[in-house]
């Protein structure tokens, strides 16, 4: 046990040293001592301090609001900023060390094979011991309290105990290296037990704890959100449904001249079951969902839905025909997106159509992929298309293959394919980034017909310049419906068109409302404001 405490002490020493290194003021000339500085009166405190659970979040967060100090703007004692303090039960102090413990455990696990980190840890322990025995300032700076899991009491470690613990630590680190990770796991377990009792400890306010600085707010601010970590083993963990107490200090340019506010609390944080800030999105999804269902059902009933032709999509058929006539392959690039990207999902559909026609025309198809999951899905898509075309025997496993998941290595590979195989048609559909122009220009140099489609705004100009046909933005998603001419898919396109019309109308109404001073106009705009 002493060894565990010793390990904790080392951490606390390191933390204490780093804190003191950050907070100690620089040594200044002694000339300043001789100048008479008039005493600055402390500023007036902030008033109306309120603490409420933060709305529309997952919990572990409290929002503070206050009215500015009357000395916020004027006078010698003008407010320079706010410091926000939260009352920490003693157990919370020990949590701060757990993060370091976790890292140290990883270091020591690595050290078991590398030795170097272990030697460093041993060095720290030996230095701490030497510092302690030689009467150095390390121990004086140490005010470390530990909650034992056996009882709730906290105690300050005495010098003899720390010294013995450090000796034990050095001895154990030297002789029982393999045991270290387990020992630290034991220490972590005792911290976990302490966390279980945090609620109880919070209720002991104002006994057995201290005020800790949790954040700063600028001098003009009147609110602060104290967002804690949701990981119980993290130093800034805020436990939900636990009484929390806050105070806000106003500080002047001289941080020692400050005024504390009244203490606010208890307040409890908790997670919400609905994010009210997202109501506009919620209604938009509902309305758009209904629109889609409505037009799909109309399409199912056989209504004739007109959709304007897109040159880029119509060119796909011609491009495949051209490749067949020339006896050259078709290169299909799915981009750098993952299978979770909607652009890639849309691209799968287009790939299916292209593969079906390729199978019918008995042309060669090359699909180099960037992501292994995309490769697996694309293989299935192409295989099914060959099956649908009635030519399952023509399908080759190597049609769709993985190249690499390094962006420019992928470019090099695909460009190499273009220059070696000289495909008649290159189709780029999906998510593209900096590689778009590298691919498209090489394809243009190779003399291929090129059709591109992406929803990446920044890459669209590059494709427009270097490709023969480009599907801009949403046209990529529409491509599957256009290619198949299936009424159900066309129905969803109609819903999109209506939604766009609604967005245009709302945009114009919003523009007018934003320039009016009428109350209802502001209310109207507020309703479209999505927060969080």
């Amino acid at each position, binding site marked *: 046990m002493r060894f565990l405490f010793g390990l904790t002490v080392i951490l606390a020493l390191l933390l204490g040293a780093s804190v003191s290194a950050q907070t100690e003021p620089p040594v200044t000339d002694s000339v300043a001592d001789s100048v008479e500085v008039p005493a600055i009166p402390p500023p007036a405190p902030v008033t109306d301090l309120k603490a409420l659970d933060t709305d529309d979040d997952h*919990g572990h967060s409290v929002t503070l609001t206050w009215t500015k100090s009357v000395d916020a703007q004027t006078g010698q004692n003008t407010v320079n900023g706010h410091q926000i303090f939260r009352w920490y039960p003693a157990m919370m102090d020990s949590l701060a060390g757990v993060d370091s413990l976790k890292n140290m455990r990883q270091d020591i696990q690595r050290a078991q094979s590398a030795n170097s980190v272990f030697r460093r840890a041993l060095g720290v322990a030996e230095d701490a011991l030497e510092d302690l025995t030689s009467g150095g300032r390390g121990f004086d700076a140490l005010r470390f309290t530990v909650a034992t899991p056996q009882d709730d009491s906290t105690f300050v470690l005495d010098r003899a105990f720390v010294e013995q613990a450090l000796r034990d630590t050095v001895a154990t680190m030297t002789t029982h290296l393999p045991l270290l990770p387990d020992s630290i796991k034991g220490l972590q377990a005792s911290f976990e037990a302490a966390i279980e009792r945090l609620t109880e400890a919070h209720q002991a306010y104002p006994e057995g704890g201290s005020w800790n600085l949790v954040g700063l707010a600028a001098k003009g601010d009147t609110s602060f959100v104290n967002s804690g970590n949701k990981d119980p083993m993290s130093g800034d963990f805020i436990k939900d449904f636990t009484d929390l107490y806050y105070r806000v200090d106003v500080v002047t340019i001289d941080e020692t001249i400050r005024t504390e506010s009244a203490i606010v609390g208890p307040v409890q944080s908790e997670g919400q079951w609905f994010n009210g800030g997202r109501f506009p999105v919620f209604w938009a999804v509902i309305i758009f969902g209904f629109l889609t269902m409505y037009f799909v059902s109309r399409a199912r009933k056989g209504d004739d839905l007109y959709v304007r032709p897109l040159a880029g999509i119509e060119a796909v058929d011609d491009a495949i025909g051209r490749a067949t006539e020339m006896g050259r392959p078709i290169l299909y690039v799915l981009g750098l997106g993952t299978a979770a990207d909607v652009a890639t999902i849309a691209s799968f559909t287009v790939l299916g159509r292209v593969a079906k026609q390729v199978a019918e025309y008995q042309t060669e198809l090359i699909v180099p992929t960037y992501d292994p999951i995309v490769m697996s899905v694309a293989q299935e898509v192409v295989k099914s298309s060959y099956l649908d075309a009635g030519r399952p025997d023509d399908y080759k496993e190597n049609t769709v293959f993985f190249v690499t998941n390094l962006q420019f290595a992928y470019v090099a590979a695909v460009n190499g394919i273009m220059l070696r195989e000289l495909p008649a048609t290159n189709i780029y559909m999906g998510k593209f980034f900096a590689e778009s122009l590298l691919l498209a*220009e090489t394809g243009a140099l190779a003399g291929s017909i090129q059709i591109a489609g992406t929803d990446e705004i920044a890459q669209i100009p590059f494709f427009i*310049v270097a490709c023969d046909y480009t599907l801009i933005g949403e046209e990529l998603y529409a491509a599957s419906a256009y290619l198949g001419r299936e009424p159900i898919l066309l129905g969803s396109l109609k819903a999109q068109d209506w939604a766009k019309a609604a967005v245009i109308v709302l945009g114009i109404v919003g523009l007018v409302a934003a320039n009016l001073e009428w109350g209802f106009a502001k209310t109207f705009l507020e309703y479209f404001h999505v927060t969080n």
Partner: protein
Amino acid sequence: MKRQVPLVLVLLFGLFMIFQYFVPHESSEWVYEFLLDWIYIIGIFALALGIWSLYVVSVDKVKTRKHDWGYSYVTLAGLFGMILFGFTARHGDEWGWYLIFVACVLLTVIMSVQAMAARINKGLPLGLAGLFLLGAVLIAVFDDTWSFYFYTQEGLQSTMFRAFFDYIMMPILATIFSLLAFFIASAAYRAFRARNLLASLLLIAALIVMMRFFPYFGENVGEFIARVSSWLMNVPNLAAQRAIIIGVGLGIVATALKVILGIERGYMGKG
């Protein structure tokens, strides 16, 4: 059944993803993070499939003697070499038999590929592959200047891994990226040819935006060009971009709904 189960799964998880967007509670967040973890798990397994695919395609190129098939050996040597370097590291400064071990492993790979690709006389490359493998195993057993590290990260910090990554891989990638400058120039030349009214407008707009960065115009002219350039970027350009973004946003929602409701089945190979 083969089609129904994936569709039901997509419906369930798709609806949950919509649900969790509106529910910030920790329980919903926990399920969301749990599901996202599956992406990593599936990704790791898929990577094995990807490596296998790359291996098969490379061997096939050698086998069929496709154009520039020799580069496939470089690909395979790079693939297996980096895997090897990532799992091994020296204990100290001595190299021992390490480099010979690496050479033996790579030669084993090359010889086994040769054996797979050969139509006749497979015995010689197979025998050599076996010989090199034996050499590699003997060195691994008896040479104590280096070790395998499967559970820790020493290999990723090893001299060979770092050297190949920092001094070969990165410069090559940077070279490919730097080609973009030349491609932009050639693409710009093609885009800015004043063939019709719209192309001429594009040329003029582009010239104004480019001239913004010319430092020798003097204060008045420079400021005027900067203002015109800012207007071009912030008004017509941004308006067009936002129109596309709105379209993309609606398209994403529509596609997602189609996928969730099972209308769009292209990702399953059924359009």
